[in-house]
C-alpha cells in the first residue's frame, strides 16, 4: 500500500468538498474492492474519503411499494432485514450470498454498484427490479446506471445516497458461482410485475445488462420452456479460465430457467 491521506467525513457536503480538494481522491464505502487493490499497490489514490461517518447514508426504509436502502447499508443488514425479506425476498437472498461473512459485514450496496464489477450480484437486481439510484445530485434509472466495465453514470464528486426498489409480483436470482472467488460467473435476476418481465444479467458480459431477448420470450410465455428458443450471442460473452463464452451463454439460459421456475 502506498501512502495516502485519510479523511472521515460526517456529511455529504463535506465529502464532496473533500473530493473537490483532493488531487486524486476516492470515496470509500465498505472498501471490499478498494482496499485489496490498494494493498496490492494496484491503486494509489492521494486521498481516501471515508463515507462511513455519514449517518443518513445507512438504513432501510419501506414506503408503500418502495424499499429504499441507504448506500452505506451493508449486505448482511440487507440480508437480515425483515422488511426486505417480506417486500422483495429475492433481494435479501441475493445480499445474503455475496462473498463471505466478512465481506457481507463490510461491503455496502452503494459501494458495490458504484464499483460495478462485471461479476457483482447487485447490478443484476438493480437492473431487473428497475431500481432508482439516488445521488446527492439526481435520480438515475437502474438500467441507465451501469455504463461499462467498472464504469457508471456517476460523476467524479457524485455520491450515491440510496437505492430504491419497487416490490414485484415475483422475483428470483440465480447465481452460478466461480468456484474460486464465488463471484458470479453468471447471475440472472428475473422479475415479474405489472410492467411485465424484466431480466438482469451479471457476470456474463463486461457490464451487467438487461436480457432483452429473454424478456421478450418470457413476456409471451413466463415459463422455463420459453427460454429454450432464445439465442444468447456468444460473441458478447466474457471468457476466462473458469468459463468460456460458449459455456457462459449456456449458463445464462440455465440460470434464467431456474430463476423463472423459482418465481412460480
Amino acid at each position: 500500500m502506498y501512502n495516502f491521506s485519510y479523511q472521515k467525513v460526517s456529511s455529504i457536503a463535506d465529502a464532496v468538498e473533500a473530493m473537490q480538494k483532493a488531487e486524486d481522491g476516492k470515496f470509500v464505502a465498505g472498501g471490499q474492492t478498494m482496499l485489496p487493490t490498494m494493498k496490492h499497490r494496484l491503486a494509489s489514490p492521494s486521498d481516501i474519503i471515508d463515507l462511513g461517518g455519514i449517518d443518513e447514508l445507512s438504513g432501510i426504509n419501506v414506503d408503500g411499494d418502495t424499499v429504499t436502502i441507504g448506500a452505506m447499508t451493508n449486505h448482511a443488514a440487507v440480508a437480515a432485514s425483515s422488511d426486505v425479506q417480506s417486500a422483495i425476498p429475492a433481494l435479501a437472498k441475493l445480499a445474503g450470498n455475496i462473498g463471505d461473512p466478512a465481506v457481507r459485514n463490510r461491503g455496502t450496496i452503494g459501494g458495490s454498484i458504484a464499483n460495478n464489477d462485471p461479476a457483482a450480484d447487485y447490478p443484476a437486481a438493480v437492473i431487473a427490479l428497475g431500481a432508482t439510484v439516488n445521488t446527492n445530485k439526481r435520480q438515475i434509472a437502474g438500467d441507465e446506471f451501469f455504463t461499462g466495465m467498472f464504469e457508471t453514470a456517476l460523476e467524479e464528486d457524485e455520491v450515491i445516497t440510496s437505492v430504491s426498489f419497487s416490490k414485484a409480483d415475483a422475483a428470483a436470482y440465480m447465481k452460478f458461482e466461480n468456484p474460486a472467488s464465488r463471484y458470479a460467473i453468471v447471475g440472472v435476476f428475473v422479475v415479474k410485475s405489472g410492467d411485465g418481465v424484466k431480466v438482469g444479467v451479471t457476470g456474463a458480459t463486461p457490464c451487467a445488462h438487461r436480457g432483452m431477448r429473454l424478456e421478450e420470450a418470457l413476456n409471451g410465455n413466463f415459463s422455463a420452456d420459453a427460454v429454450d428458443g432464445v439465442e444468447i450471442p456468444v460473441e458478447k460473452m466474457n471468457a476466462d479460465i473458469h468459463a468460456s463464452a460458449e459455456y457462459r451463454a449456456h449458463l445464462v439460459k440455465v440460470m434464467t430457467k431456474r430463476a423463472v421456475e423459482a418465481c412460480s
Partner: protein
Amino acid sequence: MAVLTGDDLAADGIGPLICGVNVTSDDGEPHRAPVHPALAQGKVNYVGDHVAVVIAESLSQAKDAAEKVEIDYGVLPSVTDTATAAADGQQQIHDNAPNNMCYNWPFGDKAAVDAVFESAHKVSSLDLVNNRMVTNPMEPRAALGDYNSGTEEITLHVTTQNPHVHRLVLSAFNQLAPEHKLRVVGPDVGGGFGAKIFVYAEELVVGWSCRKVNRPVKWTGDRTEAFLADAHGRDHVAHAEMALDENGKFLAMRVNTTANLGAYLSTFATMVPSYLYAFLLAGQYSTPLIYSEVKAVFTNTAPVDACRGAGRPEATFLLERLVDVCAEDMGLDPAEIRRRNFIPVDAFPYQTPVVQCYDSGDYPAALDKALALADYDGFSARAEEAKSRGKRRGVGLSFYVEACGIAPSAAVGQLGAGVGLWESAQVRFNPTGNVQVFTGTHSHGQGHETTFAQLVTEQLGVPIENIEVIHGDTAKTQFGMGTYGSRSLAVGGVAIAKACEKLIEKGKKIAAHALEAAEGDIEFADGNFTVAGTDKAMNIAEVAFNAYVPHSYPEGLEPGFDENAFFDPMNFSFPAGTHVCEVEVDPETGVVKIIKYSAVDDFGKLINPMIVEGQVHGGIVHGVGQALLEGCQYDSDGQLITASYMDYAMPRADNVPSFDVDYAPTDPPHNPLGVKGCGEAGAIGAPPAVINAITNALGIKHIDMPATPENVWRAAQSAS
C-alpha cells in the same frame, strides 16, 4: 537500506541451492542438475525466481525500494507445457540439460513386459494428466535471521518441517555457517503439506544477509509469493496400458510418464516422480510385471517437489483410473475386477515387481467394509431416483497402497538419497517427576504434542499433563530428520518408545536397589515398579528423583533419568485403503456434487483415533480439491495465471459431504508399535475415487482433473 544481489552471495562463498537425491538416467549418467543460484545471475528462469534482495527498516520502505530496482530484462521464449517440454526445437532452459531433460529413468524388464503385451487377451490403455497443484499451507513461508557477532552464531527462525535438515543443508552445501554456529528454530508452523520440507532461496538469503548487515533480517512471504515461489506439486502427463487375460487378470503394466520438475531442482524433486511414484505402481494388485519409464523435464515454471502424498497420488490416480478402464473393457464390475487381482491375504509380506515389499494387508476386508459403508448395493436405486430429477449419479472406487514411515536408511541410500531417514528421541525425566519428550520429527498441525504424550503415558504411566513434547529447535532437540511421508509416528514414535524402554530398564535397577529386591523380580506397569508378588512398589517419579539425588543408589549406575534412542526402520510401512465416492452430476451445468464419501483404511494400530480421523478428513478434502477444483495454470508466456484465491479454487466445507470413515487394520510385523501412518492417505485415495465416480455417472472413459463444471458439462454433452 541495502540492495544485495547474486554477485554478493557468490563473493561471500555462499553455495547454490541443491537437490539431494540422485536418479541415474538411461545413459548411465546422473540426472542433469543445473546450478540453482539463490539470487539469479544473468538469467531468470521462472516468474517467481529470485532476483535481488532489498533490506530496509520497514516493509513499505523495502517495497518502495524494490520498485526502484531496475532490471534490464531481455525476453526469451518460454517453455511451460509438460508434454512438449522435451520436444525438438524447444527453447533450451539450461545448457547442461539438453532437450530440457533432467533424466529419463526406465525401470523394469521392458522386453518381458512387451512380450506379454504381444500375446495378451486384451490391452486396456489410457492417457491422462495429473494436474499441477499449489500446496497452499495456511501460513505462508517466513524467515528471520539474527546474527550474534559475539558468538558468531546465526539463529534462523524459519517455517520448516525439518529444522535439522535445514541446518545440515544450509551448513554443508550452502556454507552459510558451520553446523555448531547455526541454530534453526521453527516449532510452531502453520501447515506444510510438503512445501516446507525444502530449503528455499529466501531462507538462505535471510540467514546470510543478517550477518552481512549485522542486524536481524525478517522476511514473510505473502500469498502471491506463496503461489509464485513455493514448490508446486504433481504435474504429470502419462500413458498407461494394462495387459489382461480372458478372466480379467492383470498380466503386465506399461507406463510412460513425463514429469514436470519446473525451472530448477528443489531439494527432493528428483525422487518424487521416480522412487516415490514408479515403486508404487503395483497398488493392491498381484500384477507380475511392470515396466515404467519416467521422463523428468525442466520448464519455465516454479520448481515442483513433494506435496502431500508425493508421487503416490500420481501412481494411484493412474493405476485406479486404468483399472476402471480395464473393468469397462472386460465388462466387469469395478469391484469384481479388483477382487480378481488383489494380492492374496496369505501372500504377505509380498514382494512387488517394483522393489517394494509390502508389510501386511487385507485388501478384501477393506473392500467389503467400504462397500457396506457406502451401501454399494443400493446405488442403482439411488441412481434411478436421481435420474428422475434430471441428475446423473455415479459411484467410484479407489484402492491405494502407499509407502510411509519413510524410510530405511540403507534402502534410500542405495537409491541415491544423500541422507539417512532414521529418527531420534530423547525422553527426559526432571527430578520432580515430569517428563520432557524431545523428538526429531516436527509438528506443523499433526498434533504430535498429543499423540506422542499419549504414547509416553501408555509406556511410562506418567499422567499426560506431566508430559511436554518438544520439537522444532536445533538448540533444544537432538538431530532429527523431521516430518513428511507420514513418518512421524511410524519412525519417530518408535524412537520415543525405545527411549521409554531404556528408562524402564534403568528404572528397574534403581527400584530394585531402593526396594531391596533383585532386579529380575521388579515388574513395571502403570507407572509403578513392583517387587513381583508383593505390595512393595515405587512410582516412576520417585525413581526419577532417586536418579537425580542418588544418595542411596546402585553401585556403578550412572545418575540421571534421561534416555536417547534412534530408530532406523527395517522397511517402509504400507498403509492401504478402499475409498468409495458417490457423486451427482447436474448435466445442465456440469456441477459435481459429492453426495457420499466412504473411506476404509488400514493404518495399523491407532494411537489417537480423533487425530487420525482428522487427517483422513483433511486428506480427502485435499484430494477432492485436486479432483474438482485445483488446477495451477501457466500461460504460454510463463505467467502464472492462477496466482491468487480469486482464480485458484481451494476446497471449502461446502464442497464436501460429511465423511464415513472406518478402518480395517492389519499388523505390520516390522514396526514395533504396529503403526503405519495416515497423513497422506486421503489425498492419495480421493482423486481417483472422485473421477471414477464422474466417469461412471456420465458413462465416459475419462475426464482430466480438475473436473471443472465446464469440462464436466462438455463431457456430458458429448456423452449424451
